Each structure stands twice: as C-alpha cells, then as structure tokens.
C-alpha cells in the first residue's frame, strides 16, 4: 500500500467519523471512541509513528477522560431538568443534564480522537507531500515545511534569549508589570532575528527562481487517479449515514 493510498484511506475514515459524530446516538459514538483506542494498537496504519506521538496520544486520552467527566458533571449540575440521578457530596445531579453532558462529551471525544489518530499515525512531511500531489500550491507546501523547521528551532532560541535577558538583569521574576516588560525584551530579538532570517531565505528563494517559476519547483508529480475501493467505501458509508439521518429527521 502506497503512502498516498494510506493517507486517502485515513482521511476518508476521519470524514466517516465526523459524520458519525454529528448524526449517531451518543452510545454509538462512545463505543466508536473505544474502538479507536483499540485501533491505535491493533491496526498497523493507525499506530503512532514516533514514541513522541504515542506519548501525545496516551496523554490526550487521560486529558479527554478528565474533560468528559467535567462536562458530564457540570451539565448534570447546571441543567436542572428531570429527576435527580445521583448526588455527589450532597450536590444533586439531574438526569437530563447528565444525558446532555454525555451527548456533548461523546461527540467531542469522537471528533478529537479521529483527528489525533490521523495525525499521530501520519508523518507531517508525508502529509504535505501528499497534499502537494493533490494540488496544494508549492509555496504553501514550503511554508508548512519551513514551519516544521522553525518549530524544531524556536523553543531552543526562546530559551537562549530568555537566559540571555535574565543574565542581563531583565525582571523575569518580578511583578506582573515588570514581567510584561520582560516579554518585549524576549519577543523583540526573536521577531527581529526572524525577519533577518526571512529576508535571507526569501532572497535565496528569489535567486533560485522559486517564486517566478513555481511550476519548475513542483517536482512532485500529481498522482494519477487510481481506484481505491476502501477509500470509496468509507466515503459512501459516510454519505449513507448522513442520508439515513436526514431521512429520519424528515420523517420525525
């Protein structure tokens, strides 16, 4: 299976899950969330590509459980409709509120899990290359690739400037106003150095004729249309779920 095919399938899966998140009952959505967590371990193309991605996904699962619990309890507390379903420390939680919270939390988790699973299992440079084959302008692909480069460099650069300003006596630990002033002493050299670097890189790009002849820069050929039945099936399934929901809504 090619990288492009794998990406198309994953994008179609995300589309299907998004449709499910807005159309199906919350119990099915919650079940799909569990299926996605299992799929992260069981389905090879959905496995995280780096240990960092795996850690991010695990951390997000814990975070999302906290958010979901908070959403359900908060709605149970604030929507005072229906019978009292439970009491937590003597505070009554109402049934309608808890159900509304469960609906919101399951939708949110399904949307979030689908996006995160796609990104943790996809290399960003591969995704950018794939998007370029689908018609993403070369300059946008370049911006995204440069961003990844800056994202690698920027934390170290910020830390370096922060330490330098601290050594010069910038008030990084004083009152709020002094710390806000210190913010400028960090941001100014950062932005200044970035503009200088941008001009240098921009000049290099212009000298190489990147902007005048973008078609030459488009070294990645557009993919020839190839039929991938799994991608088509996932898209058709998403459409079927959507149509079913619309029909059900019209009948109701």
């Amino acid at each position: 299976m090619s990288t492009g095919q794998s990406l198309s399938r994953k994008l179609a899966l995300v589309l299907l899950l998004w449709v499910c998140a807005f159309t199906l009952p919350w119990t099915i959505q919650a079940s799909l969330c569990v299926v996605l967590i299992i799929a992260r371990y069981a389905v090879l193309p959905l496995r995280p590509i780096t240990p960092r991605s795996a850690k991010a996904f695990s951390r997000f699962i814990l975070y999302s459980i906290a958010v979901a619990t908070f959403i359900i309890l908060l709605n149970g507390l604030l929507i005072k409709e229906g019978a009292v379903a439970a009491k937590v420390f003597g505070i009554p939680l109402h049934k309608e509120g808890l159900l509304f919270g469960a609906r919101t939390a399951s939708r949110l988790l399904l949307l979030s899990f689908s996006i995160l699973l796609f990104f943790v299992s996809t290399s960003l440079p591969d995704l950018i290359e794939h998007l370029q084959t689908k018609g993403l302008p070369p300059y946008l692909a370049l911006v995204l690739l440069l961003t990844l480069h800056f994202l690698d460099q920027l934390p170290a650069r910020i830390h370096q400037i922060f330490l330098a300003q601290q050594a010069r006596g910038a008030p990084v630990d004083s009152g709020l106003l002094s710390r806000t002033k210190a913010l400028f002493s960090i941001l100014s050299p950062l932005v200044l150095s970035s503009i200088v670097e941008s001009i240098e890189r921009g000049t290099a790009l212009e000298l190489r004729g990147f902007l005048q002849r973008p078609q030459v820069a488009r070294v990645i050929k557009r993919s020839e249309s190839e039929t991938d039945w799994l991608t088509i099936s996932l898209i058709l399934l998403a459409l079927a779920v959507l149509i079913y929901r619309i029909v059900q809504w019209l009948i109701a």
Partner: protein
Amino acid sequence: MSFSIRQRITDEMSGAALPFVAFCIALNLTAGQITAALKIPLYLDSIGTILVAVLVGPWSAVICGSAANLLAAALGNPSMIFFIPVVVVIGAFTGFLARRGWFRKWYLVAIGGVLQGILAAIASAPISAYLFSGVMMAGTDFLVLYFRSVGNTILNSVLYQGLTSDPADKLVSYFIVFFLVKNLPQRLISRLRGASNLRAPDSTT
C-alpha cells in the same frame, strides 16, 4: 488582472514573506512557552497571526492562523481544528484594519484590539458552546460556570465569558505587535509587503 483569492495570496506570499509567515505560525504555537516562563496570564496564541496581518497582509494572516491551528491539532491538541473560523476572523479583520492604517496610532490600536476581542468572542461562542458545552479546561471556565449558574443558556454564558476575557487578551496582543513593529528597523520592515500599513499616507520613504 486576476482578482481571484489564489492570485491575492500569491501576490502577498512573495520574497521574505514566505519564511516570515512560517516563523509566525511557529510563534503562534510556541508563544505560550514564553508567557508560561514569565508566568503571565495571557494566551498570545494569535500574536503571529496579528504580526502577519500587519506586516504581510490579510490573506497570509488567514493562512498563518489556519495552519497554526491545524498544526496544533497535529501536535496533540485536536480541539484547535474547530477554532479555525475564529483565526480566519482574526486574520482577516486585523489585516483589514492594518490596511486602513489602524496600526499607526496607539489609540486606533486600542480600539481595534477591543473590537477584535468582541468579534473573536462572537465567532468562538457557538463553537465552544455547541461542541464543548463551554468547557475548555481553562481558568475562564469558572466565568462560564458563573454565568450559567445565574440562569443563562450555554451559548449566552460562553458569549459573556468571551466578551469578558477576549477583548483584554486581544488588546494586549495588539499592543505587543504595535510596539514590536514600531521598534523594528524600517530597512527591514520595508522588505515585507505590509510596510505601507505602517507608513503615514504622505510618506514617500
């Protein structure tokens, strides 16, 4: 002359603008690191978008904000993807103000920042209310909780919370960008397309 969106984006994204937009996307994603290190209670997650809107143009700012949210989703915060419409509003509105010279005078920057905050609150309220029930796991959730406890709907509570906190955050972000670009050498700014946004109309340099 073509007036298509693609043509306008291509016009803005020339020379030094390409790497600068990339830097600002990364700045949006890492600005939180600076505020956390300095223990300042601000997000500053749209400071890069505002910088691009002023120094490059509105279309590039929209791309900068959208790409930053997409990458934030890719880096472990998937909920950011749903707030792309908000950053589109921030980029387009700031670019619109900058083109009309609002970043030349401090009082216009102040008014612009507050207006931007109100717009951002209006744009984010339905997303936050309907997708997240107003819970964003941030300090501002207590404001939502307060507004709901006094009998407001979720949408109204989230909107009131946004109107309470967003104008302040955007006002500070606008002022930071204003002072940053004011202190940058003209020689450097002139290499970016938005340099004319900062010059007085009668200025020829």
